[in-house]
C-alpha cells in the first residue's frame, strides 16, 4: 500500500474514448469513480476493476486500473477469484442491471454470504442499451420495448431489497443527479470492510423513458439523510427500499455498524493455522504412502 494524498481524479482516467451516447448517465458515474478513488488514494496498479458485458461494463477500460471486461453476467465470480488470489488488491466490480440481476443474477447472493471485501456498482437504467432497447430485469411491468411490444408481463426485480434481504453489509443508491453525493457514496462503499453494493440510477438517453431521464429522476429523488434515516437500521432500510421504482432515495440505506470478519480475514486465519504442519510441496506425495 502506498502513500495517499497526491493522486487526483484525472490520474485514474485512461486515454480510451467512451463508446457511450452523448448525455449517458455513465459519464457521470465514471467521474464519480475517479473522484472516489482519488479520495481513497490507492495507486491504480493496486486496483482490479472487473465488469461483464453491456454499455456500463465498458467502464473498467476508462480507468487506469487493471481492468477486466469479461463475459456477460460473470463479473462477480471473476472479482472473487481475484480477491482470493490477492486479498491486498482493491477490487471493484461494475455492470448494468441485466448483467447483475438477469444473466448473472445467481451470483450476487453468494458473494453477499461470503462477505468478500468487494465493491459492486450497478448502473441501473431499466433497459438493455447495448443491444438496442430490450426489456431488462428492472423494467417496470407494462413497459413497451422491442421485446415487449404489448407491454411487459413481469414485475421488476428490486435490487436494493434483493441485496438487503441477503444480508449485504453496505447498501446505497446514487445518481448522476447528485455527482458529489455519488462520489461520496462510492468512496464510503469502497472503504467499507466487506461486500458493498451501490445501485446507481444512470439514465439511458437513447432507449430510456422520459421519467427515467435526469429531469424525471430529480422529480422523485429524496436524500436518505434529509429523511433522518438511521443507516444502522436494516429493517428501516428495507422499508424504504420498497419504494424502489417510485421514489429515488439517495445515500446509504444500510451500513452494518459492526462489520463482521471478511472472507479474506477467515482465509488468512485458516492459512496461518494450517501452514504450520505443511509437508513441503515437493513431498506432497508422501500423503499417499501406506505403511
Amino acid at each position, binding site marked *: 500500500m502506498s502513500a495517499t494524498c497526491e493522486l487526483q481524479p484525472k490520474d485514474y482516467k485512461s486515454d*480510451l474514448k467512451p463508446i457511450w451516447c452523448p448525455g449517458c448517465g455513465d459519464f457521470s458515474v465514471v467521474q464519480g469513480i475517479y473522484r472516489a478513488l482519488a479520495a481513497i488514494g490507492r*495507486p*491504480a*496498479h*493496486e*486496483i*482490479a476493476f*472487473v465488469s461483464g*458485458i453491456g454499455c456500463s461494463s*465498458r467502464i*473498467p*477500460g476508462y480507468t*487506469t*486500473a*487493471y*481492468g*477486466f*471486461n*469479461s*463475459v456477460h453476467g*460473470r463479473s*462477480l*465470480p*471473476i*472479482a*472473487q*477469484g*481475484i*480477491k*482470493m*488470489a*490477492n486479498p*491486498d*488488491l482493491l477490487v471493484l466490480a461494475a455492470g448494468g442491471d441485466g448483467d447483475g440481476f438477469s444473466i448473472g443474477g*445467481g*451470483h450476487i*447472493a*453468494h458473494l453477499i454470504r461470503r462477505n468478500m471485501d468487494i465493491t459492486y456498482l450497478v448502473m441501473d437504467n431499466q433497459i438493455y442499451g447495448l443491444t438496442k432497447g430490450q426489456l431488462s430485469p428492472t423494467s417496470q411491468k407494462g413497459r413497451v420495448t422491442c421485446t415487449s411490444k404489448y407491454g411487459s408481463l413481469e414485475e421488476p426485480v428490486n435490487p436494493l431489497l434483493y441485496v438487503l434481504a441477503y444480508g449485504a453489509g453496505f447498501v446505497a443508491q446514487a445518481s448522476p443527479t447528485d455527482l458529489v453525493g455519488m462520489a461520496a457514496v462510492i468512496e464510503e462503499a469502497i472503504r467499507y470492510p466487506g461486500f458493498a453494493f451501490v445501485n446507481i440510477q444512470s439514465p439511458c438517453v437513447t432507449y430510456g423513458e422520459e421519467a427515467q431521464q435526469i429531469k424525471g429522476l430529480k422529480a422523485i429523488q429524496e436524500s436518505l439523510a434529509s429523511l433522518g434515516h438511521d443507516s444502522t437500521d436494516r429493517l428501516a432500510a428495507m422499508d424504504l427500499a420498497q419504494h424502489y421504482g417510485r421514489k429515488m432515495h439517495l445515500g446509504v440505506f444500510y451500513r452494518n455498524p459492526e462489520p463482521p470478519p471478511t472472507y479474506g480475514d477467515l*482465509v488468512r486465519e*485458516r*492459512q496461518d*493455522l*494450517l*501452514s504450520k*504442519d*505443511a*509437508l513441503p*510441496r*515437493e*513431498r*506432497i*506425495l508422501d*500423503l*499417499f*504412502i*501406506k505403511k
Partner: protein
Amino acid sequence: MRKDLVFGMAGSGGDGIVSAGDSLLQAAAAEGYHGVMTKSFGSQIRGGESSCRVRISTTPILNPGGNLDVAVALNWEDFLKFGAELPVSGNTVVIYEAATNIKESEIPLVGVTPLQVIAVPIAAMAKETAGTERAKNTVVLGLIAGWFGIGAVAVMKGIRKKLAKKGEELVEANQRAFDAGRAFAMEHPLKASMNVLPSETKGAVKLITDGNDMCAAAAIFAGCQFFGGYPITPSTEIMQFFTEHVWRYGGSVLQAEDEIAGIGAAVGASFAGKKAMTATSGPGLSLKAEMMGLASIAELPLVIVDVQRGGPSTGLPTKTEQSDLFAAAFSAHGDVIRPVLAPTSVADTFRITVEAFNLAEYYQTPVIVLSDQEIASRKETLDPIDTSQFKILHRLRPAGADLQDYKRFKPTENHISPISHPGMLGGTYLASGIEHVESGAPTNSGSVHQRMNEKRTKKFDSLKERKDLFEVTGNPDAPIAMVAWGSVAGVCREALAMAQAEGLNVKLLVPYLLYPVAEGVYNDFFRSVQKGLVVEQTHLAQTYKLLRMHIDLPKGLKSLARSGANPFLPSEIVAALHLLLSELQRSHEGELQPQE
C-alpha cells in the same frame, strides 16, 4: 503359481464390497505386490448395486485386467447388473452366497461354464462368528486369503488399524469372521491351486492413491494456489483434496454456486497472477465453455480437469467413457486452439497434471486435462515418484523495458507476450473477451482480429513438436498398429504385450497430447502401417474422426469404438489384431496373383 490374479466382487450397497477391495489392495501392497482397484456403482445414493475389481500382480500393472479369475457374488441380481464390467470366463472361479439358494449347477451366467463354482454360506458364517451379517466382507477376505494366498497376515493387520478406535470387541469379531473364511477355504481346496507367487519387493515403500487425489496433489506440487469448482461426479474428490490441503500452501479454494462461477473465479485468480484450476465432468464442461473461450482470448493460464463419464447430459454419471473428446477440443465458439492432455493411469496423472500447468503457464492458455471415471476413481499401488525430476514453469513476466509503455499483447517471435498482473507497477492493462489491439484496448478491426487470431493459434506450433507427449511401443516398423489414449491405453498396452508374445509384428501409439493434433508425430508413426485400430470408448469414434480431420490415415486403419461402461478386454483386441493380420496376408496374396 501365478503372477497375476483379477478379482471381481459385487453386492448391495451395504455389503462393504468396496471396503473389502480396499483392504485387499492395501494388504497386497503391504506384501509387495502391484495392484489396481476399480469401483463401479449404480447411481443410487445409498444401497443399490456396488462392485469392485482388484488386480494383483508381481509385475507392474497396466490396466484393471480382462476376464475375472475370481468372481464373488454376494447376490446374483446385483452381480449381473455389472454385465461386461465383471466378465466371467471358462477360467474363472465363481464364489457366491449359498443363501441365494441357487444350485452350483444353475448359477445365472449365460453361455459360460466357469472353471469352478463354489457356494459359500457367507452371511451365515458372518452371523455365527461376528454376530452380524455386516462382517460378510471380512469372511470374503478370509476366503481369498485361504484360497489365493493373499493377505493372510496383512489383511487383519489393516483391519485392526482401521477399527482400532472402535474397540477391541469389533476387531475380535472381524478376526473370527476372517478366520472362519480362511478355514472354509482350507477345508474346501480348489480343484487347481491358484496361489500367487510371493512378491520379490516385499517391504518396499508403496503409495496407494486414485487418479483424482493424484491430480490434486500434482496441481499443488506444480504451484496451483487456487481452485474454484462445483461438486460433480466423478471429479468431486479433486475439490475435496484442495479443501483439505491447499491452505497449507498459502492457497485457497472456492466451492462456487455453479460451474460457471467455479471456472470464473479460477479465471480471476489467474488474472491476479496465481496458478489456478477447476475440475468438472461432462455437464460442467458444457457450462464452462464460454469462460474457456474468455481465457483463450484474454490469454490467461488455466487448467481445467474434465473427468469424463458417460454422456450426453446426465448420461451414465458413475461410469467411464471417452466421449468428451470433441467437447474438450472444440467447445467454446470462435477460432481457438486449447491444448488437451490425457493421462492413462493414476501414476502418469501426476506427470500429465504438472505438464498441464506448465503448458498453461508457458502458452498463457487454458489447458484441459481429460481424465476419465476409471482413472479418477481407481486406486493403484505405486512406487514412489521422484518429484525433483519435474521442471515447473512460470508465465513470462514483463521486466524492465517491457514495463515502459507496457503492451500486454505485444507481438513477439514465438507469439507469447509478457503478462503482468494487478499489483505490478507499470503493467496495468485491460483484459477482455472483446477483440483487442496490442495494448488491450477494444477493437472491431478485421485486420487486427486476423492478426490476433494468428498470434493466439500460431503460438501452439511448437507444442506439436513435443514428441515426449507421445509414447510409441512395439516394433517401430510394424505394419499393424493401434492408437489408444486415456484408460483404454492401458488395455492396449497389455494387448500389445500379448500380441507380441504370440508373434505378431505390431506397435502402439499412445498420445498424451490429444489436441492440437500433432500431424508430424502421427505421420511418422503411420509410415509403416498398413492395418490398424483406433481403440476408444466413444460411440461415434470421436478419436478416429479427429485424426481423420487432420491426417491422411492409412486406408487399413479402422475404428474399434464402443459406448462407455463396456470395457475392452485385452484378449478381444488381440483377436482383432489377428484378424487384421490375416486380412493383410490375404491382400498380399492377392497382389501376387498374376494379372489377367
